[in-house]
C-alpha cells in the first residue's frame, strides 16, 4: 500500500534542496526547494491553527495556481482541514454561496478575485505568503487521519442553480495515486509545466501529487500566453504535461507556426504515414521541432474533453506520446488511462489496477473502486441517484474493445463540454430562453460541437426565433452563447413519465434532418465570433469598426480585449483597440500580440570578467578620486551585515555623484553584485543636437561599464526594464535605485514614484532605505567641477513589507527614508 497524502506531505523535507516548485511571473522566476515548500506548509498549517480552525473545517480556495496555493492546500490536507478549491472563472456570488454552504470561515483568494463571504475572512494568498515567511512559527504536531476522513470538497464550475460538492476522502486520493503509479514510467525525476488549474482534479493528482511523490519539479506560470509558455518549456524542459485538448491545439499551431509553409502542410497531411516509422526514428527526425518545447517532452496526458484524433496523431508523429485518460472529479479522478506500453489512438485506455468498470445495458459506464467518492456534500438524494448497487454512474456512454481498451461514445447527461474543457449547463441557457416572451419551452443540447437550442414557441405571441435567440444571448456569458437553433415541429417535446424532456429523443429528431439553422449572422473567424458575441444585434463584417459600426462602448472594448487575450493567450495593449479599429484589424492585433518582441537591456556588464575589471577600476581609480571630492561618513553599516542579497537599496537623489558614492560605501561583497537603475529620461534626452546625443550615449556606456547602470525608461518600455530588474534579482544581483526619479534641485526630497512599490512587490525582495546628504553641495545639478566637501550616508534597517498597493508601499519606503533624518525638509 502506498503512502497516504499526509505521509507524502510530511516526507517532503527528505528531498532537501532539490527544486520542487517554480513560479514564473512576467518579472522573475521564484524557486521553492522541497525543504522550503515543507517549511511553508508547516507555517501555513500553524497559521490555520492560529485561526482556531479545527479538523474537518472547510477552507475555500479561489486563486490562480501558484506555490503558495500549493503550500496552503497541502497544509490543509496534512492537518485534516478540508480544502474547497473553486474554479478561477467562478462568479463572486457563486463563491460566496459555496463559502456559505460549506460554512467556511476562511476564503483564500487571489489578488484579483473579489468576494465577500458571509462569515469569516477573505485572505489574499500573497498576504498569507507574507504571514508565513521564513522565521514565522511552524506547526510540528500533526493529527492522525483516518482513511474515510473527508479530504476535500470539489465543486465543478458553472452557474447551475444547484451546485454539488463532490466529497473526496483521504483514501480516495491515496488510492488514485496508487492506481496511477504503476502505469507511469520510472523517469528518475519528472519535470512538469502546469497548464491546468489546480481546482481541476486531474491537475491535483497527476500534475501535483504524482510529481511530488517522485521528487519531480513543477513550473507554475502567471500567464499562459504562447510566448511565456514556449519560454517556460525551453528553460524548464518538461518531460510531461497534463493538458486539455484546447491547449494541445494551441501548442500545435505554435510549433507549426515556426516552420516554412510547405513543410507545415506536409507535416499536417502526412502524420498518419509518419506513424508507420518506428518511434525512435520519429523522435530523431523531429528533434528540432521538439527542441522548441525544451527537447525533453515525452508524454502529454490529456483528459477532460473529447480529443480530436488528428491532434493525437500529430503529436504521436513527432514522437511525443499523447496519453488520453478518462475520469471524473467523483473518482479522484483517473479511471482509465493509456500508458506508454499500452495505448491506442481514439481510446481512453484500460482501467487502473484498482478500478472496476462495467458497461450497463444502455451503454452507460459504471465505475467502482477505492477512489470513488462516497457522495455529494449534504445532498443525499443526489448521492442516491448517482449510484446503482454500489457502482457510480459516470453519465458517459462507452464500450470496450476486445483487448479491454475503453472507447467513449457520448454522454448520458446533457452537460455540454467545450473544447477548452469548460462546462455549459443546458439548464442555464434554457432558463434564459424560457424568460423570453413567446417561448413555451426550450431544450438546449450540444449539436456538432456547439450550443444548440430547440425551441417550442407560442405561435400567437412569439417574435421571430432570431430575435428570441439574440435576446437570450445578451443575457448569457460568452461561452454559453447559442450558436444555432431548431424550431420543434410538434405541439410538445417527448417527455419522461416525470415530465422531463427526453433530450435523446430530441437529438434523434435533430439527426433525422429536422430543418435547423445556424445563427445567420454568425461569422466564421474566431476573432469575429468573439466580436459577434459582444454585439449580438449587429452584423459583423471584416471592415466593421468597433465603435461606429458595431456599437461597442469603451467597456465593451475592454471586455473584448480580455476575451481575445484569454482565447489566444496574448497580451494586447489598450491603445491597439480603439473605437475605429476594424474587425479585420483585430486579427492583426492578435497576431502582433503573439510575437511580442522582447528587447532586453544588455547583460555584458554582468560578466565575471567585466565585474573584475569594474572592481579594479573602482578600487584603484574611481573611488580614490571620489574620496578627494566627497568626504564621506557612513552610518548604519551594521544594517548591511546580515543582508542576504538580492535587496533593493532605495534612497534620495541629490547629485550625479550619488550612485558612485553609495557604491563606494557598500562592502565589496555587496557592491560587486549591485546594479544601478538610471532613468533613461536623463541619459537619453532626445536633443535636437546630435552631438549632444552621442555624448549622452557615450556617458551611458561608460556608466554601464564602471557602475553597472541599467536604464529605466520613464514610460514606454517600463515593463522591459522591470523584467530586467527581475532577471537581476533572480540571479542574486541587488539593485540601487533613486525612486524620486530625478535629482532634486536644492537637496530637498520630492515624492517617490510608484515604480519602487511595484518593484518591491513583484520582485519580493527586502528594501534597504538610505539617506544621502551633502553631495548636492559638492556637485550641484548643472555643475561640472566638484567642490570638495563633507557628505553623509546613512543606511536603515531592511524593510520586509506586507502586500499593499504599490502606492502604499511607496509611501512606506518614503517614510523609512525620511525617518533616517528627522530634520529633512519634505516638499510634497
Amino acid at each position, binding site marked *: 500500500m502506498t503512502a497516504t497524502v499526509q505521509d507524502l506531505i510530511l516526507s517532503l523535507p527528505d528531498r532537501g534542496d532539490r527544486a520542487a516548485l517554480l513560479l514564473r511571473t512576467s518579472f522573475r522566476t521564484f524557486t521553492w526547494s522541497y525543504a522550503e515548500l515543507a517549511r511553508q506548509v508547516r507555517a501555513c498549517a500553524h497559521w490555520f491553527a492560529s485561526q482556531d480552525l479545527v479538523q474537518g473545517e472547510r477552507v475555500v480556495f479561489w486563486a490562480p495556481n501558484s506555490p503558495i496555493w500549493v503550500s496552503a492546500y497541502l497544509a490543509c490536507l496534512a492537518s485534516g482541514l478540508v480544502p474547497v478549491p473553486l474554479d478561477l472563472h467562478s462568479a463572486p456570488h457563486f463563491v460566496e454561496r459555496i463559502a456559505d454552504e460549506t460554512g467556511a470561515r476562511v476564503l483564500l483568494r487571489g489578488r*484579483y478575485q473579489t468576494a465577500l463571504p458571509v462569515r469569516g475572512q477573505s485572505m489574499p494568498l500573497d498576504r498569507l505568503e507574507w504571514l508565513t515567511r521564513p522565521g514565522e512559527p511552524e506547526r510540528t504536531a500533526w493529527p492522525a487521519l483516518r482513511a474515510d476522513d473527508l479530504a476535500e470538497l470539489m465543486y465543478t464550475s458553472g452557474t447551475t442553480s444547484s451546485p454539488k460538492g463532490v466529497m473526496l476522502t483521504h483514501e480516495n486520493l491515496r488510492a488514485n495515486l496508487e492506481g496511477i503509479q504503476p502505469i507511469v514510467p520510472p523517469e528518475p525525476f519528472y519535470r512538469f509545466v502546469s497548464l491546468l488549474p489546480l481546482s481541476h482534479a486531474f491537475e491535483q493528482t497527476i500534475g501535483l501529487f504524482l510529481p511530488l511523490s517522485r521528487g519531480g519539479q513543477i513550473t507554475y506560470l502567471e500567464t499562459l500566453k504562447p510566448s511565456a509558455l514556449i519560454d517556460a518549456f525551453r528553460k524548464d524542459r518538461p518531460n510531461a504535461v497534463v493538458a486539455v485538448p484546447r491547449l494541445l491545439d494551441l501548442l500545435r499551431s505554435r510549433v507549426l507556426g515556426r516552420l516554412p509553409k510547405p513543410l507545415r502542410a506536409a507535416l499536417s497531411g502526412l502524420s498518419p504515414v509518419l506513424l508507420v516509422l518506428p518511434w525512435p526514428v520519429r523522435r530523431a527526425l523531429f528533434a528540432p521541432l521538439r527542441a522548441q518545447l525544451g527537447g525533453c517532452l515525452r508524454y502529454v496526458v490529456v483528459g477532460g474533453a473529447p480529443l480530436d484524433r488528428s491532434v493525437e496523431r500529430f503529436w504521436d508523429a513527432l514522437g511525443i506520446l499523447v496519453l488520453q485518460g478518462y475520469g471524473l472529479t467523483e473518482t479522484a479522478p483517473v479511471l482509465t488511462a493509456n500508458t506508454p506500453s499500452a495505448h491506442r489512438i481514439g481510446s481512453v485506455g484500460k482501467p487502473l489496477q484498482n478500478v472496476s468498470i462495467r458497461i450497463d445495458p444502455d451503454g452507460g459506464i459504471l465505475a467502482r473502486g477505492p477512489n470513488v467518492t462516497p457522495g455529494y456534500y449534504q445532498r443525499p438524494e443526489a448521492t442516491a441517484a448517482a449510484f446503482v448497487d454500489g457502482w457510480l454512474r459516470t453519465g458517459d456512454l462507452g464500450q470496450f474493445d476486445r483487448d479491454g481498451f475503453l472507447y467513449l461514445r457520448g454522454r448520458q447527461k446533457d452537460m455540454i463540454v467545450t473544447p477548452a474543457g469548460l462546462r455549459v449547463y443546458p439548464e442555464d441557457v434554457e432558463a434564459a430562453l424560457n424568460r423570453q416572451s413567446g417561448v413555451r419551452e426550450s431544450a438546449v443540447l450540444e449539436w456538432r460541437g456547439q450550443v444548440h437550442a430547440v425551441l417550442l414557441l407560442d405561435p400567437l405571441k412569439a417574435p421571430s426565433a432570431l430575435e428570441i435567440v439574440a435576446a437570450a444571448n445578451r443575457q448569457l456569458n460568452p461561452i454559453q452563447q447559442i450558436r444555432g437553433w431548431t424550431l420543434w415541429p410538434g405541439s410538445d417535446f417527448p417527455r419522461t413519465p416525470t415530465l422531463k424532456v427526453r433530450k435523446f429523443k430530441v437529438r434523434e429528431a435533430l439527426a433525422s434532418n429536422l430543418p435547423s439553422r445556424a445563427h445567420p449572422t454568425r461569422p466564421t473567424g474566431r476573432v469575429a465570433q468573439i466580436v459577434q458575441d459582444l454585439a449580438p444585434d449587429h452584423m459583423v463584417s471584416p471592415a466593421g469598426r468597433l465603435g461606429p459600426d458595431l456599437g461597442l462602448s469603451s467597456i465593451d472594448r475592454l471586455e473584448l480585449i480580455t476575451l481575445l487575450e484569454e482565447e489566444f493567450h496574448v497580451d494586447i495593449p489598450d491603445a491597439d483597440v480603439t473605437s475605429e479599429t476594424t474587425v479585420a484589424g483585430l486579427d492583426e492585433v492578435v497576431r502582433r500580440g503573439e510575437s511580442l518582441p522582447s528587447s532586453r537591456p544588455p547583460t555584458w556588464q554582468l560578466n565575471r570578467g567585466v565585474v573584475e575589471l569594474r572592481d579594479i577600476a573602482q578600487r584603484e581609480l574611481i573611488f580614490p578620486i571620489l574620496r578627494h571630492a566627497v568626504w564621506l561618513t557612513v552610518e548604519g553599516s551594521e544594517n548591511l551585515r546580515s543582508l542576504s542579497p538580492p535587496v533593493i537599496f532605495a534612497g534620495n537623489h541629490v547629485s550625479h555623484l550619488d550612485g558612485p558614492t553609495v557604491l563606494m560605501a557598500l562592502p565589496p561583497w555587496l557592491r560587486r553584485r549591485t546594479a544601478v537603475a538610471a532613468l533613461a529620461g536623463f541619459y537619453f534626452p532626445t536633443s535636437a543636437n546630435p552631438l549632444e546625443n552621442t555624448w549622452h550615449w557615450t556617458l551611458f556606456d561608460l556608466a554601464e561599464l564602471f557602475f553597472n547602470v541599467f536604464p529605466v525608461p520613464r514610460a514606454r518600455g517600463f515593463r522591459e526594464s522591470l523584467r530586467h530588474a527581475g532577471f537581476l534579482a533572480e540571479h542574486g544581483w541587488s539593485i540601487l535605485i533613486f525612486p524620486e526619479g530625478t535629482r532634486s534641485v536644492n537637496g530637498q526630497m520630492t515624492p517617490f*514614484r510608484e515604480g519602487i512599490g511595484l518593484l518591491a512587490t513583484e520582485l519580493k525582495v527586502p528594501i534597504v532605505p538610505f539617506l544621502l546628504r551633502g553631495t548636492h553641495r559638492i556637485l550641484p545639478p548643472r555643475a561640472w567641477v566638484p567642490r570638495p566637501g563633507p557628505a553623509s550616508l546613512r543606511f536603515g534597517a531592511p524593510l520586509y513589507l506586507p502586500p499593499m498597493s504599490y502606492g502604499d508601499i511607496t509611501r512606506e519606503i518614503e517614510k523609512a527614508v525620511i525617518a533616517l533624518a528627522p530634520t529633512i525638509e519634505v516638499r510634497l
Partner: protein
Amino acid sequence: MFIGTGVDLARVDRLARLSTNARFLRRVFTPAELDDPRPSHLAGIFAAKEAVFKAIGQPPCWQALSVSRAENGRPTVRLDVAWRDPRLRALDVSISHEGEWAIAVAIAVFDREGDGV
C-alpha cells in the same frame, strides 16, 4: 491656462457581469480599488477613470491612475508621474450614482495651451 473636461457614464450591471472577469479587473483597477468589490463602487471608479482620460486627452493607462475616497467621501485621483503631462497643474473628479448608473465628471487644468491638445 487651459482646461480639459471629461464625462463618462457606466452601467452597474455591466460591471457586475464583468466582476467575474479577473483579467478585466486586473487591467482596469488597482488592488486598493478592489478592496470594495461592489459593482456600484467599481462602476463609479470606472466612470471616473474614463472621465479623467477624456479630460487629459490621453489614451487610457488604467493602472497609472488610481481613484480613492478621502475621509469626507470625496473621490481623489492620483496619476503616476510617469504618465503625467508636465503641464498638468490640477485634476479633479466627481462621481454620482443613480440606480443602475454611475456618472463621473473630471476637470484637468493645464499650465498653457499646448500644440494639438
